[in-house]
């Protein structure tokens, strides 16, 4: 296994674990945790491709991750604010009880 593929495998595993958290847990906060893990897996991919890919001096991967981290911070802030707001109205953070958008 080359270093790149091991990095990618770690990323895939991390992504799958995060995805499992999103699919298999019902608490909104845990789902958010899963999403954070998936985002981190994506970041790892960028860094891995920057490290082992071609033209690393352009720093594209690093830049991408910097912005990704910024966006993730914003996402976490807004997501958690939404969870607090939902909790205030529905007295629950269980995602399967929040189905007012049901058709």
């Amino acid at each position, binding site marked *: 296994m080359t270093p790149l*593929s091991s990095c990618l495998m770690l990323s895939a595993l991390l992504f*799958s674990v*995060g995805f499992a958290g999103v*699919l298999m847990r019902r608490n909104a906060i845990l789902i958010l945790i899963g999403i954070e893990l998936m985002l*981190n897996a994506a970041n*790892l991919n960028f860094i891995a491709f920057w490290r082992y*890919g071609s033209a690393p001096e352009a720093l594209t991967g690093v830049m991408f991750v910097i912005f990704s981290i910024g966006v993730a911070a*914003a996402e976490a802030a807004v997501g958690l604010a939404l969870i*607090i707001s939902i909790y205030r109205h529905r007295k629950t953070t269980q995602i399967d009880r929040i189905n007012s958008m049901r058709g």
Partner: protein
Amino acid sequence: MLFTIFAALTIAGAVAAISLRNLVHSVLSLILAFAGLAAVYLLLGAQFIGFAQILVYVGAVAILIVFTILLTRNDGTFGTSSQASWNLGALIVIAVFGTLAWTIHSSAALQHALPPQPEATMQQIGTALMVRFALPLEVIGLLLTAALIGAATIALHEKQERP
């Protein structure tokens, strides 16, 4: 060797984060996963990203999640979904991971020779951010400001509704 240790730490933290029943334990495990990932970044030579990972994820996002957990009363009935949907979810996750793993394994992009450690000094990153990526940086700044105000608005509204 080091990579394997940190990778194992990351995965262990991640698995614990999504499977532990206590939410605070979950977050603490998540911090472990983040820290492990930061170490992986350092191993890969991305010093700035590694420290930024710790600063943002451990120092901010995790603390934010902790605040949310403490601000919402979790009555203990949370946990996994019903058995059927749990099985279905597990199946889908395994399918996704299988496809990903198979794709990585069979990818032709991995046949390159190992390149030397690239340079990513702070000087370079700073120059790139300030020159080539100045506009995205501004946009991120705007986004963060908007998110800050938005989050505060969402979480702080309805002052009058309280009797």
